[in-house]
């Protein structure tokens, strides 16, 4: 039963299993364990990014394609829900309409980009997606009538999900059962479902072909698979999952703007997470996102302490300043590309066999 749920691709390592169980249990119980909105926001961000990063892993880790347009699809999903809710009013059907339109747009765009440039080499695709993504970002901030420009869009959600809604009068275990909590669990279960769906995809025969293309596209072609078709399909699938993640983000934040979902910084974050967590493992997305987001939210406080303690040495202090945390992640990224290209998950898994 459990093996089926995980598509027969179990973590295959005791520590990894333990970590995953801890993470999932932690995320499931966050509203009851840790009070305060910061913890809940961090947990929701982790959940959404798990889907986003896993969908990027489908592309980078399983198919071996580097795309820089992933935040574009993320943004399309977020804008779809945001625009529909802002224009059509806070109803479930407007969320649905926004989501469907966003998925369609992502489908068409990813298909076009894929057919246009996946015939050529990986590098070409990376460059073209970079250009397209930056053009899309400009477009989103220019169409301010529709997208709210640089300020973004604030919008209301259906009543069930709005913070003012109280399901029960009495709080349970210190957590009040309100719309916020319901939204959190909506995000939680959607993310889990989407993650399991992607796990299913990469472990299907289709997923095996993708891995064959990653390992040796010449040979995959020779065996009789049309690599262009498979690459494009993988591109489209990744784009659609990213769009769904974007919709979840918009629902959680009740806001969307260029910095929340479209910026190049997010793209870099995704890349860092996938590689540090482990390319081509799916579980790497869970581990990587959790580590990264926790570091982003809490490591900076620690670094501030370090910077304060070393204030006698200005250079060291500057290196440890909380604003420089990306520097250390960048270094970690480069080191992990060299020394453990399969990331944390790959490292854990290989320990068992050796």
């Amino acid at each position: 039963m459990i093996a089926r749920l995980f598509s027969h691709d179990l973590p295959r390592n005791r520590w990894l299993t333990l970590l995953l169980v801890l993470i999932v249990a932690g995320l499931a119980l966050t509203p009851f364990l840790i009070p305060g909105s910061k913890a809940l926001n961090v947990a929701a961000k982790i959940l959404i990014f798990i889907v986003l990063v896993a969908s990027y892993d489908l592309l980078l880790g399983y198919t071996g394609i580097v795309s820089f347009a992933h935040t574009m699809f993320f943004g399309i999903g977020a804008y779809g829900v945001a625009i529909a809710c802002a224009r059509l009013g806070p109803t479930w059907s407007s969320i649905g309409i926004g989501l469907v339109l966003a998925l369609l747009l992502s489908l068409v765009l990813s298909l076009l980009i894929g057919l246009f440039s996946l015939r050529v080499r990986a590098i070409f695709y990376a460059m073209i997606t970079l250009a397209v993504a930056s053009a899309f970002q400009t477009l989103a901030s220019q169409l301010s009538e529709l997208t709210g420009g640089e300020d973004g869009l604030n919008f209301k959600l259906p009543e069930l999900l709005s913070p003012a809604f109280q399901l029960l009068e009495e709080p349970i275990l210190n957590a009040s059962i309100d719309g916020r909590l319901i939204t959190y669990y909506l995000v939680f279960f959607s993310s889990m479902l989407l993650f399991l769906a992607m796990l299913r995809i990469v472990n299907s025969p289709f997923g095996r072909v993708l891995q064959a293309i990653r390992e040796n596209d010449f040979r995959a072609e020779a065996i009789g698979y049309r690599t262009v078709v498979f690459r494009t399909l993988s591109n489209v699938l990744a784009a659609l999952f990213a769009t769904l993640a974007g919709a979840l983000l918009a629902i959680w934040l009740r806001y969307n703007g260029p910095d929340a979902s479209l910026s190049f910084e997010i793209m870099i974050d995704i890349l860092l997470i996938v590689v540090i967590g482990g390319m081509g493992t799916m579980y790497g997305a869970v581990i990587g996102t959790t580590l990264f987001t926790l570091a982003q939210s809490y490591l900076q406080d620690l670094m501030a302490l370090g910077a304060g303690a070393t204030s006698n040495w200005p250079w060291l202090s500057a290196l440890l300043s909380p604003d420089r945390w990306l520097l250390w992640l960048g270094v970690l990224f480069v080191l992990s590309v060299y020394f453990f290209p399969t990331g944390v998950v790959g490292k854990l898994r290989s320990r068992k066999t050796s």
Partner: protein
Amino acid sequence: MSAPSAQSASPATTGNSDASVAASRPDWLPLLLAPAMALLALPFVGSLPTWVTLTAAGLAMGMIIFIIASGLTLIFGLMDVLNFGHGVFIAAGAYIAVSVLGLLGDWTSASSLGLNIAAIALAAALAMAGTGLLGYVFERMLVRRVYGQHLMQILITMGGMVVGEELIKMIWGPQMIALELPPSLRGALILGEAAIEKYRLLAVVVGLAVFVFLLLVLNRTKLGLLIRAGVQDREMVESLGYRIRRLFVGVFVAGSALAGLGGVMWGLYQQGVVPQMGARVNVLIFIVIIIGGLGSTWGCFLGAMLVGLLANYTGFLLPKVALFSNILLMAAILLWRPRGLYPVTDR
């Protein structure tokens, strides 16, 4: 100057004699694109002096872009390494220039043209030396181990870019720093009724100098011969007894230094520097080298000119479209020639 075919449009001689005969003719068609675009813009712009101003501005912008992109296209052509970290060298060059020009306060505030130019030249020289050195370190530490692995290259150089940007923020601070032109380079020259900014003239001169220098080195020297041979068939050059590795390092350093020079010019053109400038310019130069055909110097030059001209014409005629002119141009060129104007070999 030789025809473009001499160094870039030559075919990958894969035994198809028809193809190589056809392609050995100089390929002039793309060369006509830039003048054609300029002429086409004339009736829309309407007035001749405005057109001259716009064209000069476009060419100047194109020249600066060319300086930056030429380094990348050289590195890509010879080494087959697409350096996503190229932007860091651009930013580093600009920041070094900020520091040098700041130290040379007497020279830059003097109103003598000679001293002003000398200050910029010194800043550019130091920036090139700095980024060249940086390029050496970058090649040694990051790129060397991943030759031939494209996926790894993209990831590694992207990581280098993140680290580099953070280091720049650490040294110079994350805020924008204004970079003012020295007094004698501010303002414009009036030719008839057309106004041409003085700095843009300087940019055109520097850009042309770099272009001619590159062409001469590539076409008229032994070093250039080796580099061109390396672009076409690396293993053959190696088997003839030349140390291709050393050549690689040299080209990487030279490309990084060119990026530094371009960074100085770009910083002065934008009159300010921000740590993220590298990433922003990266997008622009990728578009240019995609248009030109990956690895081709002529294509890179043409692509830069087209991008510069189109940006200025559309900026004047349809400001909203100007934001997307690059990507539209790229799409149009790729529909015509899917691998760019002058594709090098069959990479």
